[in-house]
């Protein structure tokens, strides 16, 4: 009896504690939303008023991005940036550069989920997933605000980019103005190619590389040179350039050349099968290393000059860029034509958090980042005369302090890449080439489409597991497609591929219908 009483008492106390905590929680959120709503109303009216007067309150804008971690000289640079910003929009910037991977993902995930206050964050299809977070209400819908606070940015990006980055017609983040298309091809070690007089101009498609691989295997194989470096994820399979609907791990794509909008299992198309067969042949001939399906540390052999060729994502000047960073001369061979898909549009963008207390000011700041070369270069390269020296109006050289203390390498992230300075080692025509690359790109028939996995979530996860089991063998040539491919397809079917493809087709058709 005594014991039962005690237990009941304990249960009651626990219940009370739980309800108290829960009560606090809900109270707080409701208060938050009311405050947020109130402030946005006030801000709206004040923003209208500021068209004529400069009565903006001083605010601090917190901006989180991904990169190589916080540079040492950040504080010094921010002082200058803020001196510049103050008279323009009366705001001061606090920029935090987190590190690739968990550092950025976990921290931003916690901030978004817990509703912590901040203003701007980097988002994309590969870090702090835009397509998942935006519909959940993490970011502000910028569509109605663009005309008032960022008209120049809107014009600059153009309809193509804005549509491509929108979800259900709503733009939740400003894409970085950079190369907005992709193509795939080879990077080939120039020294080795010249040594054996290999004519690279004859290589127009994937199979054309074979004679060269044979020569390298015969002459340099003994020196440990890999004829054709293949790694999982960035393998020859990319050259087929399917437009994937979910992510790379999930079967289901349309043909990249935009011939139609029919969803197929891209892993089991005739094109894929013939490629796997060729790769398998190459693997058996020893052009691909035996443990290709498991290696992840692919960069040291490239730098050591022990790789003859590999498949890479290209853009104008990619070969020169890679030559600089590797210290090995690379020539690029474009195989696929440039294409613009949703993926490029959402590859690098800045979103404004719904928890921000200064949403308008944050957008005004992004407008300045996109339109003012002085600001974007300061954020990219630091202070002139301290972190870099100008060689001519568009070319700079980093000082030692700049190299050690402010070397972000994030030109593709901070707003408008076309306004940034170039290094002396870069092609002075880089931006012109980028522009014509963008203009020449074929636009995907389903640009702006994002597959919503919600209704087939578990099946997608099951398919991902199957892919991870079978695909590395196929894409590196280790597995024989004649036996592995049917098994792979069978397992995918068992994991529910039929339903997933049907759902994809349904969503694609609905998307195409709204566009007409």
């Amino acid at each position: 009896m005594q014991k039962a009483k005690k237990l009941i008492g304990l249960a009651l106390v626990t219940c009370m504690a739980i309800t108290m905590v829960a009560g606090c929680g809900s109270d707080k959120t409701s208060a938050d939303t009311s405050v947020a709503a109130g402030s946005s109303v006030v801000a709206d009216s004040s923003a209208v008023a500021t068209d004529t007067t400069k009565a903006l309150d001083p605010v601090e804008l917190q901006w989180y991005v991904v990169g190589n971690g916080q540079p040492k000289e950040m504080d010094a640079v921010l002082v200058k940036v803020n001196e510049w910003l103050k008279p323009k929009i009366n705001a001061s910037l606090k920029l935090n550069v987190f590190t690739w991977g968990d550092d950025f993902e976990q921290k931003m995930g916690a901030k978004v989920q817990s509703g912590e206050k901040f203003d701007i964050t980097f988002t994309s299809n590969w870090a702090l997933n835009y397509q998942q977070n935006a519909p959940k209400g993490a970011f502000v819908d910028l569509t109605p605000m663009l005309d008032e606070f960022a008209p120049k940015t809107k014009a600059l990006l153009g309809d193509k980019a804005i549509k491509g980055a929108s979800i259900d017609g709503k733009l939740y983040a400003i894409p970085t103005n950079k190369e907005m298309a992709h193509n795939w091809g080879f990077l080939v070690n120039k020294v080795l190619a010249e040594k054996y007089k290999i004519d690279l101009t004859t290589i127009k498609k994937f199979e054309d590389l074979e004679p060269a691989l044979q020569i390298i295997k015969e002459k340099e194989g003994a020196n440990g040179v890999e004829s054709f470096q293949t790694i999982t994820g960035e393998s020859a399979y990319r050259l087929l350039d399917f437009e994937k609907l979910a992510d790379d791990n999930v079967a289901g794509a349309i043909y990249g050349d935009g011939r139609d909008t029919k969803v197929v299992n891209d892993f089991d198309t005739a094109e894929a099968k013939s490629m796997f067969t060729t790769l398998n042949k190459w693997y058996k001939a020893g052009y691909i290393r035996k443990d290709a399906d498991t290696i992840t540390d692919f960069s040291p052999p490239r730098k050591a000059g022990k790789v003859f060729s590999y498949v890479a994502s290209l853009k104008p000047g990619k070969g020169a860029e890679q030559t600089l960073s590797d210290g090995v001369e690379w020539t690029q061979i474009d195989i696929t034509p440039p294409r613009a898909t949703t993926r490029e549009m959402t590859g690098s963008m800045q979103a404004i958090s719904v928890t921000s207390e200064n949403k308008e000011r944050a957008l005004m700041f992004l407008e300045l980042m996109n339109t003012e070369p002085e600001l974007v270069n300061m954020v990219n390269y630091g202070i002139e005369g301290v972190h870099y020296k100008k060689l001519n109006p568009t070319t700079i050289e980093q000082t030692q302090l700049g190299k050690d203390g402010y070397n972000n390498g994030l030109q593709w992230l901070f707003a408008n890449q076309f306004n940034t300075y170039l290094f002396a080692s870069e092609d002075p025509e880089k931006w012109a080439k980028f522009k014509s690359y963008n203009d020449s790109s074929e636009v995907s028939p389903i640009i702006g489409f994002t597959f919503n996995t919600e209704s087939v979530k578990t099946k997608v996860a099951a398919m991902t597991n199957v892919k991870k089991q079978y695909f590395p063998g196929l894409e590196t040539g280790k597995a024989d497609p004649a036996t592995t491919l049917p098994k792979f397809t069978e397992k995918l079917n068992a994991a529910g591929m039929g339903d997933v493809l049907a759902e994809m087709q349904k969503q694609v058709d609905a998307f195409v219908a709204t566009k007409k």
Partner: protein
Amino acid sequence: MSQNEDVKSTNSIKPFWNGMFNLMFIIYSIACIIPLLLVIGVSFTDEKTITTDGYNFIPKVFSLESYKWVFKSGDAIVRAYGLSIGITIVGTLCSVAIIAMFAYVISRKDFKYRNIFAFIVFFTMILNGGLVPWYMVYTNFLHINNTLLAYIIPNLANAWYVMIMRTFYQTNVPDSIIESSKIDGAGEFRTFIQIVLPLAKAGLATIALFQTLAFWNDWYLPLMLIDNSKLYNLQYILYKTLNAIQYLAQASNITGGSAAILAKLPSETARMAMCVLAIGPIILAYPFFQKYFVKGLTVGAVKG
């Protein structure tokens, strides 16, 4: 004397099995030590030699380059080193004090509410609030994010160690000693500090060692709670470097080109050098605690 030998012979195992057990543990120890030696070896190797010859226990081309890089790249690592040491010392002292006191109170049979308090601790071992509420408590309620307290407070009390300590007090500190000190006129604090704690030294040392390890090796708290790069500890810098390299090696669609970014991160040997530096102090801590360690862990079993 002869009786002693008798006991010994009945308790000892056959020489063959004795040898087998020894062999087993020797192999196990080697399996633990070899990777460590390899890490040390690689950290002293020249970077280019690694790409051409692979990893070697004894460096073919000896080089201190990686250690130079670690100390040149910054005050960041040196500062993190200092922080880690400070956090470990302060954190261990505070947490051992709290665990010792809490466990003592719930081990006393004459404390009326001990079961309730024991349950409160025990409860957290089975259920927790989940990540987001956990995060919100520290950031929105306690506001310790971005301060050094974020390293210490979440690790202060550990339910499992409280349980171990409680058992330790119950088995090693007889009630009669506490009673007699009370009769002699000692207050509760005096009893605790002068009578109970010295008897519980072995248990305290064991927990102190575990907590030292926990504080030293912790990278999760800065991952969640620290944004300011000046407050990162050593393990976290190591963790985020390795994690970034892994992430970049797999992420193919990063706009800047993942290979170009990878080139900027520390090389293989530098990573190994960081590992060696991170292991350093904790190896020094072991001999310190070893005396008590075995005793502390065998608690609960019948002892001769």
